[in-house]
């Protein structure tokens, strides 16, 4: 049997819009891939970047964050806060070498079950294309190559 990579994705949804969109997708029997594990928050503004860092450090290949459309937040404007946090968080993760496409923010209202399912479809395929992440630290065993010359490598002075 050949190994087929199935992405592990953590999704954060807001109680008032995107979680209901996911619910609607379910009741409407719209199919979307089972790769995403949804975590319901009361609001996308509750999303502490720690959750995303922990997901990535614990083996997630990608993280999708969903919230109400701009202007439609149940708590007035916390989804704007989520947007700002997302943008700064993604810059930080890119600074740590992560591909920017592994984290994504989308908006979905409670009526957008079909759209929610299609966004999950798209994201799963994007992560599949990026391949496994398996964020980790190297084994304690020192790779034998650490001390050998790396003549092909350009290092700016």
């Amino acid at each position, binding site marked *: 049997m050949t190994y087929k990579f199935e992405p592990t994705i953590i999704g954060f949804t807001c109680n008032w819009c995107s979680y209901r969109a996911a619910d609607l997708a379910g009741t409407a029997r719209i199919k979307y891939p089972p790769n995403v594990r949804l975590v319901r928050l009361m609001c996308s503004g509750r999303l*502490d*970047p*720690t959750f*995303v*860092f*922990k997901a*990535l*450090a614990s083996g997630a290949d990608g993280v999708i964050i969903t919230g109400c459309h*701009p202007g439609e937040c149940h708590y007035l*404007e916390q989804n*704007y*806060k989520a*947007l*700002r*946090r997302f*943008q*700064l*968080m993604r*810059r*930080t993760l890119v*600074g*740590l*070498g*992560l591909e920017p496409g592994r984290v994504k923010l989308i908006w979905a209202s409670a009526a957008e079950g079909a759209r929610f399912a299609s966004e999950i479809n798209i994201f799963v395929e994007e992560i599949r294309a990026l391949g496994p992440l398996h*964020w*980790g*630290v*190297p*084994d*304690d065993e*020192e*790779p034998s*190559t*650490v*001390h*050998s*010359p*790396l*003549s092909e*490598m350009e*290092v700016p*002075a």
Partner: protein
Amino acid sequence: MSDKPKFAMYWAASCGGCEIAVLNTNEKILDVDANFDVVFWPVAMDAKYKDVEAMQDGSILLTLFNGGIRTDENEHIAKLLRQKSKILVAFGSCANEGCVPGLANLSDAREIVHTAFNTVSTDNPKQVYPMTSYDVPEGEICIPKILPTLKTLDQVVDVDYYMPGCPPESHQIAAVIDLVIQVLQGKAELPPKGSVIGAGNSTVCDECQRARNVKTITSFNRIFGQEIDPDLCLLEQGIPCNGVATRSGCNARCPTAGAQCIGCYGPAEGVVDYGARLVSAFASVIDAKEPDEIDRILDGIPDPAGQFYRFNLAGSLLRAGKSAWEKA
């Protein structure tokens, strides 16, 4: 040999600032000498690893360990001192959370060695690289091997207490020395294992005297090249000051002196990931709703990974940049 309890201090991957901070306790260092028998302290006295190896397990009462674990020698001594010590303290930012040496975790270890031995500032025409072992007529000689990433002390051994700071403030060190002496005299009890000692339980902002109002940030700027209000919160003035996520204990020295907090006391009580807390705090106070406008403001923080993890990368959830662990 005296009957006094034994004291040791060791430096792994560190700069030596922690030992200077200990000596900066001035005459308090005489109390250390009066109450302890200093058995091992490579910076201050001559002792060999074999002397430590010959000691009984648990015979050193107190070991202050500073520095991160960068080489197999660091790791060996960390394990050795753990075995020989009753109380092992992760002393200073490097041992606690990696500190500046931990920023090397943004790079692959080969790249680090390469940079050290083969950049324009290094005259190395024959491409000579160090060998970790070499046979000579007298036998094999070895130098320590660099590990793939820098680790914090508690990622390698069990740690009893954590004392943060780069370096820990001398008045905090003096207070800890006093406490340990009082414990020896039966006048005080040790805090529970795993406690952070020699620091506060709040944030730098709590100790900062600058006035704080509602923050609405429209641009992030570096601290030079603009007028800074000496009485107003630096973050409010668009200076990326890390005080909001940083543990108190330094009396807000940097903001008091007019410079932003860079976070050397590490994560405040209850903060799981220092950088994530700062991302959250900084993004919350930006006054913008449009992605492009937010991006323009965020351009004022050119190196977010460095800004948020200057002292904390090795101790963070992600621990290293991707290139440090990715198999080539």
